[in-house]
């Protein structure tokens, strides 16, 4: 036995009946660190970590840079756009653009209108898509496959294809000509003579009306002989949402169908045994289970409706109802002509965009963990 081995071996000494004392020499710190950090495995781990971090930060930069430039530009004054030394950081910090947007462009009016529209359609869409998705996932009935293909078709048909006929359909809204058949001239009343109910409906943009040849505002009754004019009201969006035909509803139905498939059948079966009807089971057992998924769909639906300009541009032909997408314009007080006009106007439009998405950013900040966690725990599979 040589000396070094003797030194490494722990020495056990009995101190008392129930206690022993072990003396050993610790490996020097240098040696320990070497063993821990200087092997291939650790180095590889570090390299991968750094690469991953750099890559993720790089992509994050790519994602965030447009927003950074927009925000930076929105605080610049008009001189900054002809100053070559100004890039990302404004030299003359000013809130002029935002002040003009909020005071001149009717931001709050548009905000409330769009909040009502996007909120109501998103809530309806979430509920209806849950229902339809659940129907596809859990019930076997004849023609299920075909109906599901029809859902996919509504997703594939580009909405520009239906642009004209969609407008015509809601401009002269009529169920198979039933309304026309029943006849009638519509309730021709002015704004003052209209009842309270109509006034409230008008306030909510829900009263069908059109401008007659003489320029008077005419409210369409249910028995109007030309069909109801639903443009410039929220009805087209609400009707499309109620029937699961709204913007990207095919995707929501698909996601929810996949989600409901992963819920074990036993859950409902036990509810049925307890005497619960299918719809009651859906409301009390299934819906509470799918809240994270519903929040995800709500977030999508709300924000896509919020920034949508196709449907709102199609159905809101008059400038009376201001929606959030209409505020993108140059405020009167900021109109100037100089060398940097192009850049300045772009900055103003960008600032409009910032104000538009601000509510969505707040919403996203609160709901963002649902968006991943909700889908994560769904066991979403594609079969």
């Amino acid at each position, binding site marked *: 036995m040589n000396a070094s081995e003797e030194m490494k071996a722990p020495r056990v000494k009995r101190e008392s009946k129930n206690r022993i004392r072990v003396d050993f020499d610790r490996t020097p710190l240098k040696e320990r660190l070497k063993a821990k950090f200087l092997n291939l495995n650790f180095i590889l781990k570090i390299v991968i970590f750094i690469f991953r971090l750099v890559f993720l930060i790089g992509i994050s930069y790519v994602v965030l840079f447009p927003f950074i430039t927009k925000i930076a530009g929105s605080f610049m004054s008009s001189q900054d756009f002809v100053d070559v030394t100004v890039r990302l950081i404004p030299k003359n910090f000013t809130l002029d653009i935002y002040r003009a947007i909020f005071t001149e462009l009717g931001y709050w009016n548009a905000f409330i209108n769009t909040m009502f529209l996007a909120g109501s359609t998103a809530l309806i869409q979430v509920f209806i898509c849950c229902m339809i998705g659940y129907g596809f996932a859990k019930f076997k009935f004849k023609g299920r496959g075909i109906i599901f293909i029809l859902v996919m078709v509504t997703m594939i048909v580009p909405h520009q294809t239906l642009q004209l006929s969609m407008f015509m359909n809601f401009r002269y809204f009529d169920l*198979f000509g039933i309304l026309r058949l029943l006849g009638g001239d519509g309730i021709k009343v002015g704004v003052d003579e209209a009842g309270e109910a109509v006034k409230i409906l008008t306030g909510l943009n829900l009263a069908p009306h059109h401008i007659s040849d003489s320029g008077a505002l005419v409210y369409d009754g249910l028995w109007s002989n030309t069909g109801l004019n639903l443009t410039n009201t929220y009805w087209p969006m609400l*009707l499309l949402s109620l029937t699961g035909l709204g913007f990207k509803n095919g995707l929501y139905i698909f996601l929810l169908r996949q989600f409901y498939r992963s819920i074990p059948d036993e859950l409902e079966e036990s509810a049925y045994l307890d005497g619960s009807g299918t719809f009651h089971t859906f409301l009390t057992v299934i819906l509470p289970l799918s809240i994270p998924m519903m929040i995800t769909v709500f977030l999508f639906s709300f924000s896509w409706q919020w920034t949508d300009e196709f449907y709102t541009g199609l159905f809101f032909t008059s400038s009376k109802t201001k929606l959030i997408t209409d505020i993108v314009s140059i405020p009167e007080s900021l109109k100037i002509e100089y060398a940097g006009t192009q850049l300045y106007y772009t900055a103003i439009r960008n600032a409009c965009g910032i104000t538009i998405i601000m509510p969505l950013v707040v919403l*996203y900040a609160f709901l963002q963990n649902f968006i991943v966690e909700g889908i994560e725990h769904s066991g979403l599979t594609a079969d």
Partner: protein
Amino acid sequence: MTNEVKMKDLTGANSSPKKRKIASLDRRKARSGWLFVLPFLIGFAIIYLPMIWDSITLSFNKIHIIQGGGYWLEFVGFENYSKALFVDPNFVQTLVTGLQNLAFDIPAILIFSLFMAVLLNQKMAGRALFRAIFFIPVILSTGIMETIEASDILGTYMEGTSGIDDGSGSSAAAEIVSAVDVEFLFQNMKVGTELTQYVVQMVNNIYNIVNRSGVQMLIFLSGLQSISPAIYESCRIDGATAWETFWKITFPMISPMILVNAVYTVIDSFTTNSNVVMSYIKTVYSETDGQVVSSAMSWMYFLIIAVIVGLIVAICSAFVFYSRKND
């Protein structure tokens, strides 16, 4: 009781009600299935179908607006279609460009979103933050923001290092990867120039790709989550490397999601407003007599999408691996 049962068994007439009762339970479930999808069916029948029918008939007609409201249609057969295909100088060209872009986009988006999903699925510090950042474009860069983005000259201005506008169109700094460098790099690796071009294009186009792969990333992430960790564990015990595990386990298990995402990407990039064909159809729509021509165009466009989606489903289904077959 036993007597009764025997009686029922003996007489054929009595056994049928029992059967009917079972059948009616099934039927009742089927009926509630119909009830659940009823909103869609009603909407499809009374709103969507008439719209499709109108749109198809309009594409074969010419609209004459009557003074003071109303309109009448004149049947012109395939005139709108031939106008779109043979008279319009830009439509066919735009269509070809659109298809070329798609051929480029689909693999890029699929590869990128799968890669990101695998990356974001790993446990690491700041994962929640990165996830939140990567889903920002899905929520914020749609609709009106896309329109604003399209005319955003400020972004390139701020990114550039030269003066306001040097007239060269694009500044060198804006191109993240200079094609020459990468080509030099790849020449030694003996891969074709096409691949080099593709990679260069993909990197330069990264913003667009990141922007459009949000939903796909989400679907892939959920797919990755549904793979049982036990499989990975047993692989590790058997000594498989991460690379092998990805190709032998992750890839086959995620392949149904690849099909779903491929279809979704096709539909999404075909029908988004920034698509070249869509924006062209939009400009045609606002021209005189353009409404009918644009619906003819978009119907042809729809047929092409449908064929491509069908092709992708047919090709991908051959390679898709399903771990369990139910239904």
